[in-house]
């Protein structure tokens, strides 16, 4: 079974990976590259905990063959997290208690990043619609919506209060 070399940009760095046909990005990230921030909640495309960005678009890495990202820019939570300190979205989630068990958090932060990159001032409806594919069983979503609004404020220069 012919493995293939696929070249793509992962978090700002060009990499070549050797993968069997139809290996998913989730399996590559978690099993081969040990990027564990991308979670594995269902492998059915139903929970959003495996969301990564491909050319800035959020996608379910559990359903995405590695070969499909050849030549593209892939971003994972490891890529958003600065070496020192936190991204404003991470600060906002932390300050707003926007997580409890934390398992859904990476996927939700990725979708929030994609949303805020595209729409710096999302209203509540736009935030809620963007997050429709992310399951959180602990928080009841309200603190997450507050956190995204707070993140927007921080990223637009106003000091977001917790």
């Amino acid at each position, binding site marked *: *079974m012919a493995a293939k070399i696929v070249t793509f940009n992962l978090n700002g760095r060009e990499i070549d990976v050797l993968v069997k046909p139809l290996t998913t990005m989730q399996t590559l990230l978690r099993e081969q590259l040990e990027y564990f921030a991308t979670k594995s909640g269902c492998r059915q*495309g139903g929970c*959003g905990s495996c969301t990564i960005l491909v050319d800035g678009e959020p*996608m379910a890495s*559990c359903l995405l*063959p590695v070969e*499909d990202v050849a030549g593209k820019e892939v971003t994972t939570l490891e890529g958003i997290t600065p070496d020192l300190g936190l991204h404003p979205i991470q600060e906002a989630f932390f300050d707003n208690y926007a997580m409890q068990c934390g398992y859904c958090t990476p996927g939700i932060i990725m979708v929030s990043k994609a949303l805020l990159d595209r729409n710096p001032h999302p209203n509540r409806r736009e935030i809620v619609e963007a997050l*429709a594919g992310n399951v959180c069983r602990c928080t009841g979503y309200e603190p997450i919506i507050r956190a995204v609004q707070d993140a927007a404020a921080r990223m637009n220069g106003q000091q977001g209060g917790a």
Partner: protein
Amino acid sequence: MSITNYFQPQSLDEALIFLDEHKDALLVMGGGTVTMPLINEGVSAPEKVMGLKNAGLNYIHQQNGRVVIGATTTLSQVLVEAPLPMLGEAARNTAAWTIRNMATVGGNFFVPPPAGDFATALLALDAELKLVRQGQERFVPVSEFFTGFMANVLQPGELLAEIHVPIPQGQTAFIKFGRKVANTPAVVTVAAHVQFDGALVQAARIAMNAVGPHPVRARKAEEILLGSPLSDEAINTAASTAAEECEPFTDAVASEWYRRKMVKVYVSRVLKNIAGKEG
């Protein structure tokens, strides 16, 4: 045995060559949002898979009174470009942003009920599917594409390449009714396109999803509307007829009884929506 090949044709022609070469052994995949879960769970273990994402079939343009959509255009693209109001609505009501970035318009014709809401909108708009095989192409109306549960007219070696949607001349309306506000399977979906000659209904298309083995037309209900004004009385009769002629099923989300009830409610609401627009 696990997957031996994942073909990524760079053009439609290359895709057809692969298809001819491997025939039934080749599983054709659009966005993967239906195929990949089955592979992940070991329910499906194909040897050869062909992904059409790079075959240059994702585009939306207008061509002599028709909207032409490439088969691997994603639902997100349709939502962003919203070539027709109903198509924007249908896309917005399917799955969630992350999945819409992957799911394709063409893929929506190969999904198990109650999925297929986008195909339902295309059914109501009398869309036609351009099916191609090496050296040949043919157009099949969506209304004749499905032949049964997960069955269609596609011949071996044939691919769905494009969807041609005549610009609707009348009023259109679409409602997807699910148990949750978003990202949820349909209890029932209704899409309608009604053309008027003055105050009288000149042509009517009512398409329904989740109440049959695939998206279906409520033909008897359509006939009732022809030639008369879209009055409340005509709407109620049509809605009751649609409820009788549909073949709902039971699943985790809704029972047959409830789906049949909701066909009556939502065919009526969609038609009233259109009547309201007609003013």
